[in-house]
């Protein structure tokens, strides 16, 4: 058990190191860097350019840049933003908390809407309810999430004459204003993820209804409600809880476009701005954080399965 877990953690670490290496190579291949723009008036002055490059360590070979960055990261130092001159850690932590709030509220919406729909559909495959829920999942999973956001903006304006403030307010300053600025993005993301949750819940319960122990319960003459409540729901609980982790990772990745549409200063928008501004340290830090969160969630899901289901321990 402990050996399996440590092997799994080791594998995750190797993957994280590889992934950051990939990122490092990739973003240095992006044409152009921040240097030219920073120089402004003195652009074209080779001495000034060389000095700035040396200042940011960009004159070093890539492998040595990577090693010194990785060394600093292990010591907890993510570097300084080339654009803002602030520590990267502070910048991405602020942004991450904004995105995390968005993600958690969206997850709540997705569970509250998606799970009941999926259970209703899964209890009676092929029924009218099932068909309606399938229509809902098809619609929600097929709509581009930023388009859903645009439609919400249009509808809010046409029906209520209301449009959200395009300035984000942190919940610590004013909870009401925070809710106002995050309402539509949460609804847009929630519409998508509720569909995903409903589909997953339905699949799980339909698969369970086919199992032998359900057939045995039916043969014993148990009513459908008891079978569903006692046999299906109990077995479905674990995958439904772990699915929350996967959905959260999906939301954290998918917010890039929604944050851009609604001008929310989260991790996605920070990442995009860092790419456009060629702010390597911020970009590396933000990507590292994204990858680590995704890998950690996957690791926790696997470990949770191992704890709950002894059959998974060897895997």
């Amino acid at each position, binding site marked *: 058990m402990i050996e399996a877990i440590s092997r799994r953690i080791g594998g995750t670490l190797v993957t994280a190191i590889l992934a950051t290496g990939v990122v490092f190579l990739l973003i240095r291949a992006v044409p152009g860097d921040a240097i030219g723009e920073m120089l402004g008036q003195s652009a074209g002055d080779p001495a000034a350019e060389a000095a700035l490059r040396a200042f940011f360590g960009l004159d070093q070979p890539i492998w040595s840049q990577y090693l010194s960055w990785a060394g600093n990261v292990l010591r907890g130092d993510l570097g300084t933003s080339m654009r803002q001159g602030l520590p990267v850690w502070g910048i991405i932590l602020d942004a991450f908390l904004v995105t995390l709030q968005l993600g958690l509220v969206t997850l709540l919406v997705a569970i509250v809407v998606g799970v009941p729909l999926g259970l209703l559909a899964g209890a009676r495959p092929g029924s009218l309810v099932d068909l309606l829920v399938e229509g809902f999942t098809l619609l929600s999973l*097929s709509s581009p999430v930023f*388009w859903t956001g645009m439609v919400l903006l249009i509808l809010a304006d046409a029906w209520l004459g209301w449009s959200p403030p395009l300035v984000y307010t942190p919940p610590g300053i004013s909870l009401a204003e925070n809710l106002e600025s995050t309402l539509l993005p949460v609804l847009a993301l929630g519409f998508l993820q509720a569909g995903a949750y409903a589909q997953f819940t339905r699949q799980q319960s339909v698969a369970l209804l086919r199992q032998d122990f359900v057939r045995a319960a039916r043969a014993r003459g148990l009513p459908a409600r008891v079978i569903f409540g006692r046999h299906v729901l109990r077995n479905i609980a674990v995958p439904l809880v772990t699915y929350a982790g996967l959905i959260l990772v999906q939301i954290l*990745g998918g917010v*890039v476009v929604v944050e851009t549409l609604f001008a929310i200063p989260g991790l996605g928008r920070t*990442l995009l701005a860092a790419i456009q501004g060629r702010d390597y340290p911020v970009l590396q830090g933000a990507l590292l954080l994204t990858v680590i969160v995704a890998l950690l969630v996957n690791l926790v899901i696997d470990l949770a399965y191992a704890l709950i289901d002894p059959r998974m321990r060897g895997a």
Partner: protein
Amino acid sequence: MRRPGPQLLIGAGLVLILVAMSILPGLFAGSPDAVVVTRRLEAPSAEFWFGTDETGRDVYARVVHGAGSTLGVVAAAVAVAGLLGGGLGALAGFAGRLPDRALSRAADALLAFPPIILGVVLASTLGPGARNLILALAIIYVPVFFRVARAAALMEAGRAYVEAARTIGFGEWAVLTRHVARNVAPVVVQQCIILFPLALQIQAALGFLGLGVPPPTPDWGASLQESRNYLTVAPWLAIFPGIALLLAAAATSLLGRALEDRDA
């Protein structure tokens, strides 16, 4: 198992219409670039079914002509990813040992990124243009195909026919390309259909972020980006390209679901 009938019919019908639109847009609408300066931002009417945009272009024509560039990019990307990822996956699953471990690690490293973020990084790295966009989308999905094909090849490698082929003197390469690959291919093709709607979402998002094909090529995601400044004045600019994306994604997921149901 549920009857796949209506799902498959609706999905296939919509896909056929979209394919026809992509190949022969001239049959469905006039030029997407024709400008009528006096008729800017007009609401949908009998003359302009989907209204006109800020320069006086016909939105309907732009949506129809956008099918080819939008769906063509996605189809090409999925095909490239399927060939590359499927090939490498079959190789890794069949060969095992070191090549398998190295390739699997590389696939894991790529899969650690949320697809849209990988897409943003790749599209910025490669620069604008349809060919680079195809490449960026393809790289995102190579590891997914790799995993699917690897699992299938791993299963095939243990089958009796593989041993039989070896016994009668086929080399390893021949067993892989002639026998194993043939049985892995259908899985990869099915995966192409399943991944198409997902890749379409990424393509649209990249277009929306301004990282897709450059204007004036009509592209659904890019049209949505252009519509942002006119959301409340001219909502039709945002509604119709979005519905086109929705229908294309729904049609292909219906096909994918029908295929999955058939297997179940």
